[in-house]
């Protein structure tokens, strides 16, 4: 087994996404699916029902009355919010294992995943991709799942990576690739393949740092990238890698995003932070 095979075999240590959440992800990616299809899946799954009711009835969630069924929750919160809760609940457990090596504090990778997913969704709604927002949300939520496995390998090679980044101008993921043989976005895409995610979701996870020029023309991937760089600039959930990724102004230009749009997105992310902090404590 090569070193890279050894790393890839670490995928088996993750807890796979529950089948119903995987089906929701597949429906979110399918342009022919409807919200009714997704609602049906949620309503008929007992484990999802239990977790949604638990979250919605927590005192701090702030609902004005007790929720007795998923249908109730959908009426009160809207289906969009319920879909997001299902996806967050399905992925949270993996992110509870902190990836050492990236210098992240407790819960920081999960915090970054949730904030960037919400930021990506708002960007999608504001810039003409509302119909794809669940896919974009999911890709932003899962884009760094490879870091959970990569962490200990990054820790072992940190000195070499650090020299490439700080003395040779490499981005952090270019240095991961050079030193370890695979980077966290490639590994994340392999997780997606193993868990049978759809092609587009895997593509967005694989290319969220935009190192591939073709990906820079893909608007859904661009929105995930933008959400990621916004979180980096704010300092949300990045560690030793900091802001050591590449900025491609052409991505913003193709999306017709101005400096003001970028700053507004940062402001909106700050505005939602308290609400998201509450949500994070419940999922």
């Amino acid at each position, binding site marked *: 087994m090569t070193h890279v095979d050894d790393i890839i075999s670490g995928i088996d240590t993750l807890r796979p996404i529950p089948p119903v959440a995987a089906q929701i992800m597949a429906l979110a990616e399918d342009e022919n699916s409807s919200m009714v299809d997704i609602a049906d899946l949620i309503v008929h799954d007992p484990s999802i029902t239990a977790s949604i009711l638990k979250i919605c009835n927590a005192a701090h969630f702030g609902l004005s009355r007790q929720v007795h069924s998923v249908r109730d929750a959908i009426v009160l919160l809207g289906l969009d919010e319920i879909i997001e809760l299902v996806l967050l609940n399905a992925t949270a457990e993996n992110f509870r294992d902190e990836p050492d090596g990236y210098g992240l504090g407790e819960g920081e990778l999960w915090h970054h995943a949730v904030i960037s997913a919400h930021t990506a969704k708002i960007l999608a709604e504001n810039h003409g991709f509302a119909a794809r927002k669940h896919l974009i949300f999911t890709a932003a939520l899962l884009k760094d799942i490879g870091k959970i496995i990569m962490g200990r390998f990054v820790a072992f090679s940190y000195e070499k990576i650090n020299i490439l980044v700080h003395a040779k101008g490499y981005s952090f993921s270019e240095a991961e690739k050079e030193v370890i043989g695979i980077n966290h976005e490639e590994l994340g895409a392999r997780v997606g393949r193993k868990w049978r995610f759809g092609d587009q979701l895997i593509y967005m996870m694989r290319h969220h740092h935009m190192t591939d020029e073709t990906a820079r023309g893909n608007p859904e991937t661009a929105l995930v990238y933008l959400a990621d760089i916004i979180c980096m600039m704010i300092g949300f959930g990045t560690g030793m890698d900091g802001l050591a990724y590449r900025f491609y102004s052409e991505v*913003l230009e193709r999306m017709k995003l101005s400096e003001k749009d970028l700053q507004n997105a940062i402001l909106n992310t700050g505005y939602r932070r308290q609400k998201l902090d509450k949500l994070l404590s419940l999922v």
Partner: protein
Amino acid sequence: MLNAYISHQPVAVMTAVNFGELKMSRNPAETLVAFSIGSGIGVSIYDPMTKSGGLLNFVLPDASMLSPSKARIQPYMFADTGLAAFIDALHDFGAQRENFKVVLAGGAQIIDQTAEFNLGHKNYQAITSLLKAAHLPVQYADIGGISLRTLRLDIGNGDTVIQTLGQTEVTV
């Protein structure tokens, strides 16, 4: 004074100053800390005579350009509205501007971040020109690069500490 946080804790305490927040203190047992500063800038101002000070953790350069209405809700997100509120809060403490020790940390940039979108640089330009207009010299600034920083202000002795991930900390 605006609705800035003021600590009255009697025992040793470390208080986080999240991005978009201003926190003030004259509790000698308190340390204010802004963790994980990226392209935003942590501004520490301390008056050794009154042993009081605060930390502003802003992330955007100019409220008047972006959204004066949103700045009324989140004044500490911005250099201009944040610094104005900070100076008012220091005066409310009886701090004298000629004593102010000003330290800045942050303004990091993504690799190849072009001028138009270079928020770290714009934040630094904004805060230095606002401080200059207010006749407040900067004692120490650690700005730019690609790493996150943590900025701490110990209210008891006025030590301001900058920690860049992976590097030795600097005490001012």
